[in-house]
């Protein structure tokens, strides 16, 4: 990798008497972009700029004339685009990547279609059922697509639906309830993903997707815990959440250790340190608490990092 090459060249240069000319040819040969890279880059740059500018031009043209368009024209246009996109995915001669990207674009077009429908007919629907409808209608495509970015879009849509529902309809809910629901939802997605990854052979689940879900679950878990801590009255239901969280985190640590995956351990450590700091702030007084948090966080982070680095070394030696 050229980063390593650059480091190697820099290191040898620093401790030797190599001349400028030799150094320059080393950099040109091993670090700088060559003919093939430039050819690829210029083609990609010009193609992307060309495609984006052309599409932008068309979009702006429609935007300019949007209010003059008849409502059937508006809906018909988007429906036409949707049908074109789906037709492309059915043609066998296109590569799988192109078909997946077009399917993802079609999923976004479903949302656009609903938005335009809502705009034309002023349905007065709360935003949450716009997202709910969108998620439901693309659910089948997401299942069959085998395309992780589309899965991510779906996850985002479902979570947005829950957020907006909590904000607009269930405003009598306490603050931490949506966080707890989202935490459980993300854990469910994560468990499904891990199950699919280990049991079902045909589907390739990339690491970034699993990691993103873990981070989301940890974020909602942490937010839920903190907002629960600072509530004035506590429900008994909070104990269910605590149990679930402890079980999930425990499982996370277990899997992390078993699969030698440092990511789960780091995320859980991160989240736990924040939660414990919040507990310290809640429990302590004014002056001492910040000092306590400072001492705790400095010590715990150093300790955790040391532990994780030792673990990593142990794993790489095995």
């Amino acid at each position: 990798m050229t980063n390593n090459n650059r480091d190697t060249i820099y290191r040898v240069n620093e401790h030797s008497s190599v001349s400028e000319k030799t150094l320059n040819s080393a950099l040109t040969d091993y670090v700088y972009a060559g003919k093939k890279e430039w050819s690829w880059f210029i083609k990609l740059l010009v193609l992307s700029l060309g495609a984006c500018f052309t599409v932008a031009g068309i979009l702006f043209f429609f935007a300019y004339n949007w209010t003059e368009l008849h409502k059937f024209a508006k809906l018909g246009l988007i429906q036409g685009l949707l049908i074109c996109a789906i037709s492309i995915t059915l043609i066998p001669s296109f590569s799988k990547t192109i078909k997946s990207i077009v399917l993802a674009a079609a999923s976004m077009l479903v949302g656009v279609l609903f938005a335009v429908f809502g705009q034309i007919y002023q349905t007065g629907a709360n935003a949450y059922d716009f997202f709910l409808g969108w998620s439901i209608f693309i659910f089948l495509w997401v299942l069959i697509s085998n395309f992780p970015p589309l899965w991510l879009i779906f996850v985002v849509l479902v979570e947005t639906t829950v957020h907006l529902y909590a904000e607009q309809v269930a405003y009598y809910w306490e603050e931490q309830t949506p966080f707890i629901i989202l935490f459980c939802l993300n854990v469910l997605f994560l468990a499904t993903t891990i199950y699919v990854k280990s049991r079902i052979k045909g589907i390739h689940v990339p690491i970034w997707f699993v990691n993103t879900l873990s981070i989301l679950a940890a974020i909602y878990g942490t937010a839920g815990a903190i907002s629960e801590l600072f509530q004035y009255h506590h429900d008994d239901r909070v104990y269910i959440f605590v149990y679930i969280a402890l079980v999930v985190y425990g499982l996370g640590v277990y899997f992390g250790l078993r699969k030698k995956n440092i990511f789960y351990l780091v995320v859980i450590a991160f989240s736990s340190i924040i939660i414990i700091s919040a507990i310290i702030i809640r429990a302590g007084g004014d002056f001492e608490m910040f000092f306590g948090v400072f001492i705790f966080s400095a010590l715990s982070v150093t300790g955790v990092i040391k532990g994780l680095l030792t673990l990593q070394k142990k794993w790489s030696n095995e």
Partner: protein
Amino acid sequence: MNKDISTEELIHQFSVAEDGSFTLREDALKDEITEQAENKTSIAITILSIFGGVFSTGAFLAFLFITGIYESEEAILVSGIGLIGASLWLNKAFNKISIDAIGVTAYLIGLVMIGFSFAEMGLLPFHVFMIFIVLAFVSLAIIRTFVLSLLSFLLIFGSSFGMVIENAGTFTTINIYMVVLVLLFAGVSLNESTILAHAKKLSKLYQPLYLALVVSLTSLLLVGFTAINYVDYEASTVDVSWLPSIIISMAILYVTFKITSIFFVELSQLQQIFIYGGTILILAPTLFAPSLSGTLLIVLISYYVNNKVSLVIGLLAFIYSIFQFYYYLGYTLLFKSILLFVTGILFLLVYFVFTFKSTSNEKI
């Protein structure tokens, strides 16, 4: 092309190329390699350390404020200097990533405290900036780690821009500062081997300097003119708003020359006119929009020297400046849509010509 090369192979190549006048300090090299290998760690742990450092130093700062330190400027100044001193010492003494994060945060907070205390004491911003620049140079002399060197360089460029604004801030001076920064960036990035060969002891400062130049130039191009709110309107100005774009275009022409020499050893007169003329034609609309040509220059140079971070920064900045350009263009939406469409078709034509030419070359 760009295959991996090991240290031993490289040393061998160098000694062959230098023909006997090549000397190597093997022990120092071996020490450095072992030290770097020990510090290799995953990105997750790096982020955790950064978070840890920021969080704990932030909590310490909160503690300091609760003790009422903000009531005395001298106390803040002393704490600030102490924090910076501590960060420099930590950086020099230890080489672990967890200590690094605390060191960086302490440095930043120390800077803020020093600046704040001087401002409260009534020092002119111009002098505060000068003190920051001196501080940055002192830090650069002491430390060699990437992040702190990067911060020091950013401090130098930021403070010098601040000095320009405070002392003589007009459109003219901002444009001239832009030209200086562009020339510095092009000079540093395209002469990597010269600088490295003649300043071997400072070679660890090259990458931070490069990245600091990219970040400073990008910020200046995209938002530099908002600093105009702090300037003196009465001062007379000379309109040189066209100057940065001209200098940038010249730099882009030079980079084009370097790129074409990768493809063709020699160019015929006609080919030269076509390529350079075409480049000037494309750059003509950017005469009063240096952000477009400047970010394009950053993209081209980043790809040339193969630096992925600055390439990403340059590309994002380029896309943003295109948005800015079209947003502020004073024409109707209809005209803009036609302009975009025509530009898009032109780019696609260039693409097809390029693809056609390269496939026909391959056939030959």
